[in-house]
């Protein structure tokens, strides 16, 4: 397990917050996935040991929740909401446009490993539908006509990710949205 000292520290702090260790399961899995990109079986065993539970108890969590992944994905993760409010505003067309521009089918990772596009269910921003979440950033009102512009931005993100892989900046004071 190759976790940074910072993540290890955060993991211990997270466990200390809860009256029972096992409650830290979801937050810890997020922390690890954010650093390593996915949750391998080896990782899951490590978490189980850390929390004093059986590996299967971690695995059942990893497989239950849509946000956890057992396989690596592309450098940039594009999630398009497909639920009703977004669909009414054109989300299916928006997604098709992104698929076309990024040369990547939804549910798949592009051949160059740059993008993964996924349909997701309502992400609670229905008033400015259609919405697309790219990694932790939210884009609102992404009408099919505006999808091309977003695709360009996503391409830049992947390029930046490739050059700065080693020194990705830490998140700043969060903006209101996104």
């Amino acid at each position: 397990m190759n976790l940074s000292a910072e993540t290890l520290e955060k993991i211990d702090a997270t466990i200390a917050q809860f009256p029972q260790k096992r409650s830290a399961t979801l937050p810890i899995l997020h922390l690890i996935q954010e650093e390593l990109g996915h949750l391998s079986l080896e990782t899951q065993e490590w978490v189980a040991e850390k929390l004093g539970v059986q590996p299967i108890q971690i695995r059942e969590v990893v497989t239950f929740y849509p946000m956890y992944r057992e396989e690596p994905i592309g450098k940039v993760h594009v999630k398009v909401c497909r639920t009703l409010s977004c669909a009414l505003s054109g989300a299916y067309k928006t997604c098709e446009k992104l698929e076309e521009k990024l040369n990547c089918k939804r549910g798949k990772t592009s051949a160059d490993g740059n993008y993964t596009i996924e349909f997701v269910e309502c992400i609670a921003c229905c008033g400015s539908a259609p919405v697309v979440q790219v990694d932790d950033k939210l884009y609102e009102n992404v009408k099919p006509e505006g999808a091309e512009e977003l695709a360009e931005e996503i391409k830049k993100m992947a390029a930046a990710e490739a050059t700065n892989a080693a020194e990705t900046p830490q998140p700043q004071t969060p903006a209101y949205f996104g």
Partner: protein
Amino acid sequence: MIQKKPPEEFRLIYKNVDVDGYTIDIDCYRKHDGYKILEKAIKEKPEDLRQEVLNSGVRGRGGAGFPTGMKWKFVDRKSGKPIYVVCNADESEPGTYKDRQIIYKDPHQLIEGIMISAFANNAAQAFIYIRGEFINGARILERAIDEARKAGFVGKNICGSEYSCEIAICRGAGAYICGEETGLIESLEGKRGYPRIKPPYFPAVLGLYQCPTIVNNVETFCHVKHVIDRGGEEYAKIGIKGDSGTHIWGVSGHVQRPGYYELEAGSCTFGDLLYGLCGGPLPGRKFKALIPGGSSTKILRFGERFEGKLPDGTPFDWAVEDIPLDANSIGLCGTFLGTGGSIVMDDSTDMLEALANLNAFYGHESCGQCTPCREGSLWLQKMTGRMCSGSAREEDVPLLKDIADQVAGRTICAHGEAVAWPVQSAVPKFKDEYLEKIKNQASGQRFNPAGYPLI
């Protein structure tokens, strides 16, 4: 009846949301009298605070509308076990995005509401279970909790009193069912979000770690703050009898100005909201259908009429536009106020695709514990999916409703109802359209070309 004049908003919870210059840091919050009510509350007796909440009649804002004071009364205070307070920030009901504004734009209001509620219930530990996708929302809350801790509003000896209470944040990971309170508790215990059978697992008695637990919605905690500010009886004067306070309407879909609007309960109608505040339908379009309070509430059809008697015996005869915006009136029309997340559909909408879209959601989100929900939701999803892609039979239309009827009321949690209600309400109301579409499909028509595909 088309109302032109927009109704007045009554901003209680959203007083500071989107106000120019208002920021999320604690200094700004305190400049706007933030944490004054916690300071006041902490000097009172917890049972008196609980009585105020009971007197206010405030109802939960998470969807089911259960009176908060009553929920708190059910808490087992004799067991000697710790009492936990949990804030449900999962906001997973499609159409609903009201809690997001509080979390992202006024986080300290939520923290103050949680701390007042925790003190009122003698809880020494609170949790915020926030949906996984709100990555920045969780960061904002973490930072706000740190600020509040430094200022003495969270943690040890709050406001210089004997009382201590911490708040921990847990981010979910994309499962709708973790919004259901017992599914949420399981998830908070680090497990799959499988809802528990009630009884015996009423959270008020056997909740988190088998201890008495209060689960309330984000907005509900904010209302508690305003109840304590005004006093229960004063608060109860806002709104109407049986539905006090304000409601936040999050309108999405086919209107000119989608958005959130906070209105006094019962002060105006859907017509006022949709025409007045939301600017009416898109150019050249007519309203066709409305899901009033989050996608699981029963659908209303523009053009249908609702007749009956009010509780005081007065007869009513309303179109959708005339329905007053309060829980009682909306309930009289066979649907629910829910979370106030209204989804509007105009005449470009293919109603079969709309239903297929929702069925796909509920099929995806069933946790799989009970057979009627697991099998029924997938069956419905497959059927409507197939009907949209052109291989439907006329018999499928009544069969849809039959399946839904077999799910509702036969499951561990209310997801079963959420699966059934869209189908049970849409099939009778749009049957003709469904049958016609089935006939037309022979000619290869997939969706109404005026709108967007919904599936």
